[in-house]
Structures are given as C-alpha cells and as structure tokens.
C-alpha cells in the first residue's frame, strides 16, 4: 500500500513500512558495529583480567560499588523512560513523548555527573594512568592496566551517552515542532534502540569493573 505523504516518505522508498523497516534494520546494523567496537575493549579486559586477577581485584575494590550501583539504577530507569517515550510516540501523544524524552535526558545527565565525580575522585587519588599514577601494592603496573581499561571503557561509554543526549535534545525540538505522528516516528524509535544499547553496555561494565573480588 502506497502512501502519498510525500513529505515523510523519502523518494527512494515505495512505502512508509519499507522506510520504517529499513531504518530499524539500519540502526541494528549500526548497533552490531558498536558491539564489536566495545567488544575490542571487552576482549582486552578479558585478557588482562585473566592474566592479572589479583591486581584487577585489588583495583576494583577502590571503585565505589554503591555509587556504581546507583548509576546503574539511573540508567535502567532511563531505559524505562525511553521505552515509554517510544510508546507515547506510537500512540501519537506529543506531550507524553516530550515529557519522557526530557526525563531520559535528565537521568542521562545525572549519570554523567556522578561519573564526573568518580573521575575527579580518581584524579585526586592519583589513579589516572600515566605519569602521575600511584598505586600501593606489588602489582602497580598491572593495576595501571586495570585503570586504563576503566577509564577507556567508561569514557567511551560516556561519550556515547553525551552523543545520545545531543540526539535526544534534537528529537525534543523536532517533537515540539510537530515533526512526529502516529504514522511516522522512526527517529524516536531508532534513538530508543541506541539508548537501550548504551544501557546494555553499562549493564556489563558495572559488574566487570566494580564487582571483581569481594566487598570488604
């Protein structure tokens, strides 16, 4: 069935559904590339955790696991609000859509602020890898590798969050300008996929980085 909504149907597509299915498949393919992108880091993590279990456990202890737990709670909640935003878009409810997008942005920001505090704490305690790194214990270099992976993995994750916040703000503007409807809300849908994926990365990062060894 062909739609004559020429403004929302791009010229290369025949139907709105073809367009929707293409957008969804395209975003999933992008997410697959992200799996492999983060995957390289997880692989490095796996190798070094295998090689230096003690250093990794000791380093992990220095991370605040309850702060990390709270941050995980924040992100999981943001996934809920994002899912509810998509749900609102499906129903064509503009006010709810904007409200839930704003909630998601707020929660994402809270996550980043807390992360910022954590980074600051590391900086103060000379746990940032490089010239000023200090660590008590016989395996200082191995601990440095842990902290390197900690900063790179959470850093790149954080970068993805920041990009997500940027996209969300654009979506809010678009929603405010009535660019979405029950028939067309692909950008919301695929941004939701992206956001959930970033949440999934954190779902793994939290236990892998914060919960090695046992709490003292």
């Amino acid at each position, binding site marked *: 069935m062909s739609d004559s909504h020429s403004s929302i149907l*791009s010229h290369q597509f025949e139907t709105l559904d073809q367009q929707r299915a*293409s957008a969804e498949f395209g975003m999933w393919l992008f997410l697959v590339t992200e799996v492999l*992108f983060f995957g390289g880091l997880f692989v490095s993590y796996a190798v070094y955790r295998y090689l230096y279990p003690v250093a990794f456990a000791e380093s992990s202890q220095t991370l605040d696991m309850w702060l990390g737990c709270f941050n995980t709670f924040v992100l999981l909640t943001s996934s809920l609000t994002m899912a509810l935003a998509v749900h609102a878009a499906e129903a064509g409810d503009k006010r709810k859509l904007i409200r839930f997008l704003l909630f998601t942005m707020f929660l994402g920001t809270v996550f980043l602020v807390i992360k910022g505090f954590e980074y600051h704490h590391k900086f103060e305690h000379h746990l940032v890898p490089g010239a000023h790194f200090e660590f008590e214990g016989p395996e200082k270099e191995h601990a440095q*590798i842990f902290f390197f992976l900690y900063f790179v993995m959470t850093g790149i994750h954080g970068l993805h969050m920041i990009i997500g916040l940027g996209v969300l703000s654009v979506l809010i503007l678009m929603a405010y300008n009535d660019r979405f409807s029950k028939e067309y809300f692909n950008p919301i849908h695929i941004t939701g996929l992206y956001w959930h994926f970033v949440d999934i990365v954190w779902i793994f990062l939290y236990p892998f980085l914060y919960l090695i060894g046992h709490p003292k």
Partner: protein
Amino acid sequence: MKNYLTQDISLKSWLLTKDHKRIALLYLISITFFFAIGGFAALCMRLELLTPGPDLLKAANYNKMFTLHGISMVFFFLIPSIPTVFGNFLIPIMIGARDLAFPRLNLASWYIYTLGALFALTAAILGGVDTGWTFYTPYSSTYSNTHVVLMATGIFVAGFSSIFTGLNFLVTIHKMRAPGMTWFRLPLFVWAHYATSIIMVLGTPVIAITLVLVGLERLFGVGIFDPRLGGDPLLFQHLFWFYSHPAVYIMILPGMGVISEIIPCFSRNRIFGYEFVAYSSIAIAILGFFVWGHHMFITGQSVYAGLVFSLLSFLVAIPSAIKAFTWTATLYKGRIYLRTPMIYALGFIGLFTIGGLTGLILASLATDIHFHDTYFVIAHFHYIMVGATMMAYLGALHFWWPKITGKLYPEFWGRISAVIVFLGFNMTFFPQFILGYLGMPRRYHVYPPEFQVLNIFSTAGATILGVGYLMPFVYLIWSLKYGPDAGNNPWGATGLEWKTVSPPITENFTQIPTVTEEAYDYHQEPMPDLPEEAM
C-alpha cells in the same frame, strides 16, 4: 532526456548530491588519487631495490615508503575500490531500486573518507610513519618517533566510511529489491557485495578501537601493549588481525563478484552453479573471521592456537576454490569473446588460483616458519591483491564504462593494456616467490648481492606494469570526448543495468521494473559487434 551526469552540472550539485551514481564517481576520483600515491611509493621502493645497497633511500625512509604504500593501497584504495565505485553505482540499478536505502549516509561516507584521507595525507606530508601498515606494537605504540597518531586517526575515520557503506548495502539489498527480484535472481555481483558488507560491519569496528588503544598508549604510556609494564604486544596483533584478515576478503570478494558478471557475458553461457557461487561468498565472509592467527604463527602464540588457525585457514580455501571451478565450468561450450573485460577476467582466474594456492603453503605451520616475513608472503598477497583484485577492478572499469559514461573505449588499446598489465604483473611478482623461497626478507632496503638479478627482473616488471596502468588512464579519459556512443547494451549483457539508458537517468528507472527472468539468461547468442570507431 537528461541523464545523471547532465541533470545539473553545478559544483554544488556534485558536492551535495544524494545520487549513488554521482557519489560513485566522487569515490572514483578519490581512490584513483590514492592509487597514484601508493604507486609512487612502490616505485620508490622498487627503484631502491635495483641494487643490493642503500642507494636511493636510507633505512628510515624506506620504512616510511613501504608503510605509505601499504596504508594507501589497503585502506584508501583497495578496500573502498570496487564497493564504493561499482557497488555504489550498480547495486541499486541491479536490484531495481531508485537509490540506496540511505542516500545521505552514502554522501556522508564519502566525506568521512575524504576527512580520513586528509588526516593520512597530512601525516604523510609531515614525515610519514615507519611502522608498516600493520602498526605492530610496541614499536608503533612506544618507540616509533613518527606521526603514528595522526595516521592512525586517518585510518580510524576512513574505517567509518567503510562501515556506513557496508551498512547501506545490507539494508538496500534486504529491503529494496524490485518486485520479482528474489534472492536467487540477484546478480552474483550483488551477493558478493552482500558478503563484503557483512565483513565491513563486523570487522571494521575492531580495528577502529585497536587504533584508539595504540593512540592512547602513545599519548599516555599506560602499558596496554608495553611488555615493560605488563602489557602484551601480541594482544595488539590479535586485535589487528581480527579485522585485517577479513579485510583481505573485503578486498577480494567484490572482485569475485565482478568476475561472476564478466565470465557469463563473454562466454554467452549461464553461470555454472549459481547457488554455489552465492553461498560460497557468504562462506568466505564467515570463515574469513576465524583464521586471523595464521599471521601470527611464529610470534609466540600458543601452538594449539596455531594448529586451530591453520586448520581453519585450509577450510576457507574451499569456497574460493569452488568459485574458480564454477567460473571455469561456465566457459565450457561457451562462445568466448576475448574483449578487454574478458582478458582481465581470465587473467584473474589464473592469478587468483596461484595466489590462493600459495596461501595454502603459508597456512601450513611448518612451511610458514620458513616463509614468514619473506618475499614469498609479499608475492602471495600481491598475486591476490594486484593479480586478482586489481585486474577485476580494471575489468569492471572497462565492462561498465559504457554504462557509466555512455561512451565506448577503444577496444584495441584496451586489449593491449590488459596484456601488458598481465605480463608486467607476472614479471614483477613471480621472481618474488623465488626470492622469498631463497630467504630474502620483506621490508628490507638492502639484500645480499646474489638476489640482485631477481630484483632487477621484478623492478623491470613493475615498470611495465606501470605502463599498463597508465594506458587506460589515458584512453578512458580520451573516450569521454572522442569515444562513440555506447547505446544501452553494447555487450548484449543480461541484468537490469543493461536495460537502462547509458548513462542512466538520475532516478535509474522511469518505472520500477518487475523481474521475471532468472539471472544470466544467456543462450550462447552472439555478442553485438563493436562499431568500427570503437576498435
């Protein structure tokens, strides 16, 4: 009626185009430029290697030359080449669509490539990199004093161009086929690019993150690849080759797709074993991810891992061999026309076979110990990259030139060039098998005097090869102005692209076609004669 070239000739319309055909031509210009750079680097290397001593280049600069050669050719020429030029141009038309699924992403891919290219060129101009295109650690991550981060950034950025192209192709092929264009009616060129796109999407992100890690190691000295700090240099190699081995399949699969189009057309026969060719493309894409350790047999990885990788490497040869057999079987009882594309295609089959067989020699653990890091390896991969892929690229350029430009190239010069390329290629690289067997290491600018004769042969061959490459550059451009009009289908070929006008209109089709025929519906009918002016 206006076609895609004449529709709007302003610069802005080209730089902001969303037309996949124009984007293909933008890429053609970019990759030709990098071919020239990579070729120049090769020229410097082969000139240096005319004599056993260090005459032209001192060691550090020779290192920079082979690095520049590898990076330009692999990342900025071969990996994009056939997909971004011919894939972009042809896939929508071949499947009966108006454009790719995401035209703006397609344009963005080209700009991203260009940005990456600028980083890489800047690194080269500022003094280059001397680590080899393989960036092995800890040399690249700690000890090298060259512009590693800048060059790595260029490759990182260009990688995203590759990813987005692959993504675009996958969505297009799945979602935008015309009515009646079932999977098994698709041209094998499309299947080949489908398989290639899978590799691009699954593999490229890994080298991206690997280059990030190298850059961070250089900047902060944290120890991830530094053995003094507990890092494992081999981890880099695992991460690097996890992409870079499948990358070689990115470089060959599209070429195989081209050959699958040329052979049936110039033998006027249906392709033999269509499903075998289609499935073998997917098999190569998948199996290609499981063999990366064969680059690391002597590096200290566990012998057990070496065994597994060796066995899997033998397996991946099987689908490739299947293709060689099906192409050959297609020729049986065919009506062979030895026009330029066919000469390239037949050359491909022979040279690919040699390259593939020597790959098996390298895949066996014991023989690899002797051949690793010698000219045998170089000859092996150049037989595939140049003997096969480059010839497929030139074959594609000639086969689809009439469709892309609406003009016929001079067939006489085409044939001569193809023969010169074939002879020059073999003269360049066959001696290198022998040199490698005799023990000449790769990446050395000096060598024992007893190797000089073979090196001189190789350089002489390279010169001839260079002439062979220059000739199409001249006569193809000449044909743009002076070539006769091609008409819709000068080859009498099957496929939707040959049903459109030459050059096609911007929307490709006035009406989306409905497909009823199987692919390669040839019945040994004669090929149309070329007009007198095109001879």
